[in-house]
């Protein structure tokens, strides 16, 4: 099977998962205790209004018909209208997406910058003080609430040292990145130790292989051996792990956007939960999962390029 066929097959495999996801998201609104229309209208729920909204939402039709309408609307990128903001959900989500994707990108870059040197050093200086600190830090960061570490970083870096803004979003792209440093650092604190450990393990494995002995016995400089021979092979598992972690990152963004008052997708989700803005809750949930599915696909494809041994069977 060629790489093209492999990618095509992965795309086809996505379809049932995507359908399942839309079923779950569609069902969500029907889990609202009582009448969804009445719940959405809240204080304004007169009998007339409820009946009108029920009809507008198609709630008077059988479930499968409603689901079919829902799918048709999705294909037309019609995600409904926000009850709170009174604008189409699609444009609302589009605006917020920029912030969340920038946060995720910033975090991925920052985590790589932190993990790469520490992972290499921990492996090359195995059992040193640095190695032990790096390895035991995972135990703490795994159980550290991200909003707590965010607040701690604000106290130390923003309030005490005045290095970064406390919260909010910038006024121009450069300022935006400046505002993203602290949130990205917060997520990296949780993510980097996982990547460092994976990098350390895979470098140690690579160092023990025969082709490294060969490279050394050829008289290659240690620097060349490490950068060309070891890293090239040792990077594969951590890169995959980073891809998988993006899903985890998206979930984490919900809390981090709240800590740093970033106007992203996660903050939108929470605001709409508070306002019982069900069309937005539904669509934000859907978008998050579509992003995870796409990132997983991208990771698989990237992996097939990184590791030529991947069998497309």
């Amino acid at each position, binding site marked *: 099977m060629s790489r093209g066929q492999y990618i095509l097959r992965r795309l086809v495999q996505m379809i*049932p*998962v*995507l359908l*399942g*996801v839309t*079923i*779950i*998201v569609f069902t*969500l*609104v029907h*889990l*609202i*205790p009582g009448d969804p229309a009445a719940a959405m209208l809240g204080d304004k729920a007169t009998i007339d209004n409820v009946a009108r909204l029920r009809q507008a939402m198609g709630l008077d039709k059988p479930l499968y018909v409603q689901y079919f309408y829902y799918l048709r609307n999705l294909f037309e990128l019609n995600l409904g209208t926000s009850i709170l903001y009174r604008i189409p959900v699609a444009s609302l989500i589009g605006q917020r997406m920029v912030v969340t994707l920038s946060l995720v990108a910033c975090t991925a870059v920052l985590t790589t910058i932190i993990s790469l040197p520490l992972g290499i050093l921990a492996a090359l200086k195995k059992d040193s003080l640095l190695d032990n600190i790096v390895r035991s830090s995972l*135990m*703490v960061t*795994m*159980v*550290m*609430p*991200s*909003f*707590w*570490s965010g*607040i*701690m970083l*604000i*106290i130390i870096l923003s*309030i005490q040292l005045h290095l970064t803004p406390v919260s909010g979003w910038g006024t121009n792209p450069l300022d935006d990145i400046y505002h993203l440093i602290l949130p990205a650092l917060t997520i990296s604190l949780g993510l980097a130790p996982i990547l460092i450990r994976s990098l350390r393990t895979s470098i140690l494995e690579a160092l023990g292989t025969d082709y490294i002995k060969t490279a050394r016995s050829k008289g290659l400089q240690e620097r060349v051996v490490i950068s060309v021979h070891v890293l090239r092979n040792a990077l594969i598992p951590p890169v995959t792990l980073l891809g998988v972690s993006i*899903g*985890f990152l*998206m*979930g*984490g963004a*919900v*809390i981090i956007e*709240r*800590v740093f008052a970033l106007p992203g997708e*996660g903050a939108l*989700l*929470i605001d*709409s*939960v*508070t306002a*019982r803005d*069900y069309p937005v*809750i*539904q669509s*934000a*949930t859907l978008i*998050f*999962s579509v992003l*995870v*599915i796409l990132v997983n696909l991208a990771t698989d494809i990237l992996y097939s390029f990184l590791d030529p041994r991947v069998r497309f069977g």
Partner: protein
Amino acid sequence: MSREASPVSAGSSGTATTNRLAATAATEQERQRRRRIASILRNRNLMLGAGILLVLVVVGLLAPHLSPYDPINPDYATTLLSPSLSHPFGTDNFGRDIFTRVLYGIRIDLRVGVISVIPPFIIGLLLGSLAAYFGGVADTIVMRMVDVVQAFPFLVLVIAIVAILGPGLNNMYIAVAVTAWIVYARLIRGEILVEKQKEYVVAAQAMGGTNRRIIWHHLLPNTIVSSVVYSMADIALYILLAAGLSFLGLGAKPPSPEWGEMITEGQTFITTAWWMSALPGLAIIITGIALSLLGDGLSDVLRPGTR
């Protein structure tokens, strides 16, 4: 008589042999049991983790006797005091002793963590073992469900479900049950797929053992360990989740001394009273570390040779 005597004598000598055999078997069993206990006691991670948790539970239960302060009612004479001997963790904006609140918080957070893990554990165990044992359509259905749930970021799906059912920790249990079972289903499915090939299972099937008996008496006891080990780390995860939901306004509500809620209340005062957020967070971290130590230790003791 002779006919009677011989069986008796045979019986008595037989009994003696059986007794001797039973005795050696018993001492062998006893020796194994002792070795097992010794290996548990020698396991530093296990003892440390269990020790910290035991202390936490006892301190949480005895909280009213350990602290003279009230965890809920405000005392406006002592607002925002920094940590001191009489208030080791300081006081909050309502003048409540934070250390006292952290102690009472053990009752909430540890309980939430433990309760949360039970439904996904049972559902996952059930669906995972059915999928693996029967294969075919059952397996396809369960695994496609796993694929779909897995496509959502865990936190986002939990938030969406809590949003629909209404905020509060009780609805969090439901949300976790619906979303987190996939981990256990995958774990147990993988283990049973390997285990069911083994001879003793094939033998049990050949002897006409019912499916339920084989799953319940043969497969589960031999495959459940990794799920139990995993559930320890999961308890820590759900404590983090409960704290996170409280932070987002979807979990515990003030004045509850839930740790996440306390961190959240402190965020308003980060410029003046760092201790309000900082110290309850330490409680979460310590509990989490204790649970991971316990999980690691259990894994060493229950699955020797896998690490």
